[in-house]
């Protein structure tokens, strides 16, 4: 990183190098509400993918496109509400607004990625913000996921309106979240930390009739 751009912004790896106990935003919920077992009759299964790296990327698509492709090996989704995933499904980039994307990578990669992106972006006008502590990713799987989502969000989750590879920010119960479809029966929810318990309790309540289970 050039010295000049280094002074522009403060890039700080907030992830400890040493082995420090970490708590996901759902730690309290598991403690307080528990985790219903996954059973044979569970038609929705929920699992958290905690401690991932979450970056918000701001800038013009033209500015970011090449760099993202180079650094992440993924195309910058230019179409509204679309999502690119790498082959492993571990790295993704999602359109949030015409000048905003969400990048999710395996935990620990985010700071280095931020540095590399900044390096590559040079003098351009952009912003990168690490929000890894502020959100978590919840995966829902099962044949009743759509119905569970229909109880929770007015957004149309029918395959015609919400194909695999789509992602939107929308209303969910009395809160909001990012909703992504990563497979025919597999969905991801990106929850904000402070609302995570409410949303977790909502999902358990609305999912009760589908014998929803939570994988540890």
């Amino acid at each position, binding site marked *: 990183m050039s010295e000049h751009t280094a*002074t*522009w*912004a*403060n890039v*700080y*790896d*907030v*992830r*400890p190098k040493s082995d*420090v*106990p*970490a*708590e*996901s*935003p759902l*730690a*309290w919920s598991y*403690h307080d509400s528990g985790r219903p077992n996954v059973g044979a*009759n569970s038609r929705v299964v929920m699992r958290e993918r905690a*401690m991932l790296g979450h970056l*918000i990327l701001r*800038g013009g698509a033209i500015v970011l496109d090449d760099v993202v492709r180079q650094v992440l090996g993924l195309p910058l989704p230019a179409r509204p509400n679309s999502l690119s995933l790498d082959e492993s499904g571990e790295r993704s980039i999602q359109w949030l607004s015409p*000048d905003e994307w969400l990048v999710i990578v395996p935990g620990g990669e985010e700071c280095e990625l931020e540095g590399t992106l900044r390096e590559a972006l040079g003098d351009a*006008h*952009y*912003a*990168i*913000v*690490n*929000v*890894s*502590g*502020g*959100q978590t990713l919840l995966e829902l799987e099962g044949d009743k996921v759509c*119905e569970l989502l*229909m*109880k*929770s*969000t*007015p957004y*149309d989750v*029918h395959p*015609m*309106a919400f194909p695999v590879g789509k992602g939107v920010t929308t209303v969910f*119960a*009395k*809160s909001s979240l990012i909703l992504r479809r990563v497979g025919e029966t597999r969905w991801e929810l990106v929850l*904000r*930390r*402070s*609302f995570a*318990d*409410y949303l977790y*309790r*909502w999902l358990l*309540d*609305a999912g*009760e*009739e589908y*014998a929803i289970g939570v994988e540890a």
Partner: protein
Amino acid sequence: MNKSLKQPNRLKEGGRIDRSRKLSFTFNGKRYQGHAGDTLASALLANGVDVVNRSFKYSRPRGIVAASAEEPNALVQLGSTEAAQVPNVRATQQALFEGLVARSTNGWPSVQRDMMGMIGKLSGSLMPPGFYYKTFMAPASMWMTYEKYIRKGAGLGRSPMEPDPDIYDHLHQNCDVLVIGAGPTGLAAALTAARSGARVILCDEQEELGGSLLDSRELLDHQPAAQWVAQVLEELAGLDNVTLLPRTTANGYHDHHFVTLHERRTEHLGETASLKGGHRTARSRMHRVRAGQVLLATGAHERPLVYAGNDVPGNLLAGAVSTYIRRYGVVPGRRLVLSTTNDHAYRAALDWQDAGREVVAIVDARSAPTGDLVAQARERGIRIIDGAAVLEAKGGTRVTGARVATIDAEAFKVTGQAETLDCDTIASSGGYSPVIHLASHTGARPTWNEAILGFVPGLVKGVHAAGSARGIHDLAEGLADGVAMAARALETLGLSARAIELPQIDARHEGAACALYQVPHEKPTLRAPKQFVDLQNDVTAAAIEIATREGFESIEHVKRYTAMGFGTDQGKLGNINGMAIAARCLGKSIPEVGTTVFRPNYTPVTFGAIVGRHCRELFDPERYTALHQWHVEHGAEFEDVGQWKRPWYFPQTVNGKQETMHEAVARECLAVREKVGILDASTLGKIDIQGPDAREFLNRIYTNKWLKLEVGRARYGLMCKDDGMLMDDGTTSCLGENHFLMTTTTGGAAGVMEWLELWHQTEWPELQVYFTSVTDHWATMTVTGPEARNLLAEITDIDLSRDTFKFMDWREGKVAGVPARVFRISFTGELAYEINVQANYAMHVWKILFEHGDKYGLTPYGTETMHVLRAEKGFIIAGQDSDGSVTPEDLGMQWAVGYDKPFSWVGKRALSRSDTRRTDRKQLVGLRPKDPTVVLEEGAQIVFDPDHAIPMPMVGHVTSSYYSPTLGSGFALAVVKGGHHRMGETVYLPMANGQTHAAEIVGTIFYDRKGERQHV
């Protein structure tokens, strides 16, 4: 067999009920039996129960009139236990289930012998419309007493007194075509749309889909109509793109084709929803449907005729008679007189005769009815009296006869001698009113169609009424209309309709109907026996006539003066008749009198269903910080701040006794002032700001200067709206040349974020800057007090020395092994470090702080202590010490106002308006109570002259007030008129208990006036 278990009116065969399944139920304490497939109404009729309720105003005995949603009388209280009570259930819409318990909503001691009925009989003539407005006025002081007695008569059913044992939910649906009503038209339309590949929802309020075809006499493709229904439903059920919703009422049609459908999921099974596989299910469900196009196939409601005594049990709608016979195998009487204006109603007489009971006569208002059904009746030898109508029903708790005479409907005259026919049932039909309720929810004005003698839906883009709902009552035409309207809807959506084959129906000739609403009586309306228009609200034709005589000429006036249409049936039966009567009285036509407007709901909907899951623990989100579990485990009392749960104080148990808030706060305050305390400040809003124009942006949005803030430094800023009033405050730190971290108040976070975006996106898009919320990413722990440095030094690699890490500096480093940003910002006036770490590691850091903090007396404190400490320092809380009418100058914060900044920042211009320049504005000051033991009440009003008579001129109020354990006295912040120039003056606070406190106006800083302690 118990006598009460017989069903005297049940036919031996026929109907769609399941005769193999007997269900017993209780009505008004008496046990009866019915069958699966019955409604409560059909079961009551089967058992020969005539009186089901008492009327609202006159307490007259009432029976079942209709078979569906339009029923005005048969309202019952459901439920065997307190918690399961449901008031005002329409018996015609309640499926029978085993063990159902129902009672009449009115009637004391019983519906058969009712005390109020006596009073109603005696005083009915004293209760013309509007009688309340004309009496109970003298003496004025007595009104509340009169009202107490009036209220005793209020209401129908009663609310349960225990919380609801059931749950409810919502389902958000999206579809291309929503078809409302699954009668012939709706089925044809749904099939057309479904075969064309559209996403279709078909709903119907009844227990079964099929509508009028379920009791039709017609043959479709030479088969009973129900067979065709079954075929269509089978096909629809097999299609992925179709959702079928029986027992589902479309109750509200909102903007842009948003329709709410109320699905009763368990009410046909029991009074509360049972567990399914050990899991709770929703008693009912609200479908929130966003449709591309809406097809209203809602059919029509039959209008009864208005004649004297038309409310006596045994008066029914003609169509209802057919429905009870054909669908439920119940014939609700022995000897029938049918009074009609149209051919269609003849079905009732034919069905009655088919059921083996006697048709005494058909009284037809037309002079020479023709039509195939008429011919059929004549062939059967049924007596038909032409040009006549039933003038009056005889009987008390059951019809005993019908007075019939020829009439001249147009001249509103009885022309012949009345003849009394011996009968126990009178069925009447005055024509058919399209069900236009949903269309009229959208704001569309219905229009009168003289050809069908009814209102049809006003035209609304994207709404398609079809079949009976728009006045096409013929079955074959209705089916074809369903197809045509579906095709039109599909075309609008850009889909091409696939044709369906319509069933073959034998053509039938129907004669024209005639217009008759109120049947004339020999006596003028005001002297004739009561002729009811709105049965539920006891509105009579006479009442309408009186209203028009009194100058109530608009139909809205008539309705409001008489209460017509304000019942739970919203006048489904009565409104058109009422309008016709008003029109007659005013010498106008029906459309001249006005139109009738319906509002959601089509039929009443349980609050719980509208609420859905958003109740109890899920009423509103509770937002937690990363340290919530620790707070709970350490006994915190919580304060609601916005949606956040913040620790308010941490009461400890001392000598087996839990501290009061006062004690806890005093302890927490002293700990901070003398040792070290810690606050979870994670709820403060945090906004990451990046871009080359970030500084310029801050300079415009804050009142103070930002161009020279160095990297590594923080600054406090005030934010105003453009009216000059304080909006929010907080510190913002410079993280890099183009990188800032802004903090906001807890409650203001979302608003400030949107505020920044508003100005950036709408006014200054040329500024290169981005804002991102990082409130949840960072957890913030404030370690403050004289020992703060010593404590922190134990677990950080940051150089904390006073000269290198100064007040209002921030530094990076590890705290408890976790990378942190530490800000030397103080809201307590003490040495303070705000430690920010990635929230996932917050609990670890917090616990390590406590591991090391014990020896320093580290004390957790909550918002209450935070408030005391900041107030001692004169630090404001936006929203508490300011209220939307307070400028930075009023707060005495001119030091934070950049008067000479080149850009006219948000709020600046407004400060020079004549009112904001006044010197006697309310200004923030400190108050020192003369009696140091007094803690002034927050919100206490301030006066200069305590002896002034009421109303007293008030000059300000107390905004913050606490006991300070440090000062050993109470103290307060307040706004006082011209307060900045009144230092040392005495003001007074007259309190509710008669005491008046005196206080001295002082500066706002009560502790460490020079601000030395935060710099140590």
